[in-house]
């Protein structure tokens, strides 16, 4: 199987993992990303933001990418200057999570649609999200920048 990823020339790959897109693999997936984020030197606060964003993206793929049954997701971590980049690539149904409108946070939370929180988290906790559809693949990049000085 060819790698799904084609990093830009400016990105140095740190690691890659291909697994079944199932919730049971969430822990393995998070540990993979955390290991590389630690090595990269991403601060504790940024890590929490990344963990929240990554969980949303990963769970989305598990739930919606392969409606007909099992499929895989390929994870990759990369460094681009002071930015830590996590890539999630799947061959499932086209879905640009970054393009979903932000939820109405003024609505009574008891009445809000359940999916809205996840979108809110992705918007709020990631520094940047990039999505592209490439030859039948969803390729999502979550980008977290290392902040200087403080525990960013």
């Amino acid at each position: 199987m060819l790698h799904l990823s084609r990093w830009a020339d400016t990105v140095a790959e740190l690691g890659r993992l291909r697994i079944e897109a199932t919730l049971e693999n969430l822990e393995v997936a998070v540990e993979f990303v955390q290991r590389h984020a630690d090595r990269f030197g991403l601060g504790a606060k940024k890590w929490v933001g990344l963990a929240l964003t990554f969980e949303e993206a990963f769970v989305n793929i598990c739930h919606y990418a392969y409606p007909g049954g099992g499929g895989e997701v390929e994870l990759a971590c990369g460094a681009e200057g002071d930015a830590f980049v996590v890539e999630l690539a799947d061959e499932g149904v086209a879905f640009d999570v970054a393009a979903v409108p932000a939820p109405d946070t003024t609505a009574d939370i008891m009445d809000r649609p359940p999916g809205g929180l996840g979108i809110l988290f992705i918007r709020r906790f990631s520094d940047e999200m990039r999505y592209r559809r490439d030859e039948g693949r969803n390729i999502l990049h979550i980008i977290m920048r290392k902040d200087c000085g403080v525990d960013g």
Partner: protein
Amino acid sequence: MKGGFMEMRTRKENNAAVVSLAGKMDATTAPEYEKGLVQLIAAGELRLVVDFQGVEYISSAGLRSILATAKILKGKAGRILFANVRGTVREVFDISGFDSIFKLYESVDAALVEMG
């Protein structure tokens, strides 16, 4: 931060059941919380205090399970209060607007006093 792990302990006080959580509330562990609370509610515990002291991470899946159980309790005229919601977990509560719909207390004792 250990992944995919959550511990849940319940004890009875005079006026409420106290549920103490520890670990991560993510997409894999949140259903355990929901299941545990649904069982308590089914057993007639309608006054609950949830202690977040040991919770180090909560994702939107965790919040959704909190919301789902709170709705069940509301339908039975029950009451749920939260204690020791701090740090990044508190931040997630605030960003999601949970701080405005749920009562958050600085300690389990303070929540029990409020429960009356």
